């Protein structure tokens, strides 16, 4: 029976995505720090969909534990989803070194460290799928969230390179570029209602993207257009904007 590992399973998008994989007949390995809460999600999925669900403790920031975490997985997953993320508070990260590093290490370093393990395993196996949930914030740095955005830009570049490398080895890599999602990450942040998607909607798009072996998806699709416009704005105008 096939397994899907979700890194950062406590997030709202991860929870919704776990539902999609469970409906698709996947067993799940849900990994994250808040194992009590993840355990509840695991119980729910088992009861609803009759799939097997394991709860695993994982701290994305404890890099040294990553090789062992991956080698201990039994059975090994066919799909690995990187859903861990931390928005942080831009104003705080501008002044506080440790806050900056936490944002970068959660969104980039820690995830890369884990996905490297998965990538090497899949390459050897000659099959497998990696899904990386990045962000449109990585498409162009903006004053409102450029520490987070920079980490996501790094992650997007990583996924792009990884895809090129692994596509020759039978391994699929899907980059997901979500816009605003109505999740706890954005609780307290004002977002434009018509541009704010629900986690369930985004999860369905991700699952479909995975099934149809897409390379890069924007969720929802209109973000591709919005971001190409944002990227197109000349720098001399961009610096004057307050996006």
């Amino acid at each position, binding site marked *: 029976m096939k397994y899907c590992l979700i890194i950062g399973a406590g997030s709202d998008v991860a929870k919704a995505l776990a539902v999609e994989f469970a409906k698709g007949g996947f067993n799940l390995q849900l990994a994250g720090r808040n194992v009590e809460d993840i355990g509840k999600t695991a*119980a*729910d999925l088992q*009861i*609803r969909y009759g799939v097997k669900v394991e709860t695993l403790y994982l701290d994305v920031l404890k890099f040294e534990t990553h090789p062992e975490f991956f080698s201990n997985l039994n059975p090994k997953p066919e799909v690995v989803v990187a859903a861990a993320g931390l928005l942080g508070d831009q104003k705080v990260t501008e002044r506080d070194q440790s806050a900056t590093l936490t944002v970068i290490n959660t969104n980039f370093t820690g995830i890369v460290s884990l996905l490297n393990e998965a990538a090497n395993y899949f390459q050897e196996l000659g099959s497998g799928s990696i899904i990386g949930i990045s962000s449109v914030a990585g498409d162009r740095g903006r004053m409102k969230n450029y520490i987070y955005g920079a980490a996501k830009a790094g992650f997007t570049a990583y996924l792009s390179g990884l895809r090129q490398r692994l596509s020759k080895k039978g391994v699929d890599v899907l980059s997901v570029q979500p816009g605003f999602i109505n999740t706890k990450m954005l609780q307290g942040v004002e977002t434009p209602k018509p541009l704010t998607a629900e986690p369930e909607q985004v999860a369905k798009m991700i699952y479909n993207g995975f099934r149809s072996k897409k390379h890069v998806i924007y969720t929802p699709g209109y973000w591709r257009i919005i971001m190409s416009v944002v990227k197109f704005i000349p720098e001399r105008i961009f610096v004057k904007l307050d996006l």
Partner: protein
Amino acid sequence: MKKQKISNWGKYPVVEANVFEITDELRAQKQVKEGAELIARGLGRSYGDSSLAETIVDVTGMDRFLAFDDETGVLKCEAGVSFSTILEFFVPKGWFLPVTPGTKFITVGGAIASDVHGKNHHKEVCFGNWVREMKILLASGETVLCSPIEKSDLFYATIGGMGLTGIILEAEFSLKKIETAFIKQEALPAENLDIVMRLFDESKEFTYSVAWIDCLAKGKNLGKSILFRGEHANLEDIKNTPFANTPLFYQNKGMLGVPFNFPSGSLNSLTIRLFNGFYYMMNKMKGSGITHLDPFFYPLDAIANWNRIYGKKGFLQYQFVLPLESSRDGMGEVLQAIAVEGRGSFLAVLKLFGKQESMISFPQEGYTLALDFPIMPGLLKFLKKLDEIVLKHGGRFYFTKDSRLDPETFKKGYPRLAEFLEIKKKYDPDGVFSSRQSKRLELT
């Protein structure tokens, strides 16, 4: 954070509130520790102002099943799980809700807070009767387990306690084993109140019974109604029906909607009279048979937003129960008052409750009547008149349906209210949990 305009199912009253969505325990704790007065809210199907306050904690995001024992049918889940979700996943496995009200779009937490009743009250009491344990978030930010053994005061005060003791986070309760998703139903027309009451008496052995009353019938037809009674069908019962091969079929169907608010006042006595007459006829012809549990229990759920037919101003539900000994006289007086006034209720539901021991729950042995009234000039004055009749006959009112009673009238019906308030004070000394209703009724 922007305030939202929010109201419950009766669309009256409307309040401006900060709504916090919680999806897990930690976030719920964080919210309570902020210390602002607040009330938990589920799917907003109470009719009045029970779950309205300036700060509302929306628990519908806490919607996970936590454990299920397929030997005993004991289910543990988060409080935001809806009855419709339970039906969707458990009817196909051969389990049904132990008690359900006339809508499935309610949460488990709301069902406990209102201690909801259904067509089987005379045999199986309220939903709270089936709850074995709850996890409650207290005003201190602490989460505690309570049951009939552990912190039993908190347990019994929370059942029917309208969220005033804390936020229900999780609950464990038993489901009921069923062989099929179908009901053997009988519809019996009754020409007047005496006859329908006799039918209720004769139907005591049926698991489910309820009557719909034509409120506009007068004179010797006062209380003209149709009594529905039913039992879960077993495999034998559906053997020769088209459902024989899919005994546990269940699907949350797409619903018809009422796409806009009807002009206020479009439900006048004439339209209601036509509706009730038509309904009476239809059911007289239909008689008995096998029906799926969805239309049997949730006839109005098939129409999303049916509350819009009352127009933008909304409507009031009015539900009371009278002690058995004064039920005949009291119901007669109430129905007479409604018929004289010509203020028909679109929907009037009569039901005989069985015995129930409880601290703050609504049901007690006797007849209950639930009425809908579109908001129109003169309504509040008229309802005051009904209040007097109900009080005169020793009756009481249902929190979940109320948005207008005065504290004195309400309190008269609840002899154990002081005990409830003591327990509330013990677990919530600073009065964190408070709703517009609890303030209006001077409970907080």
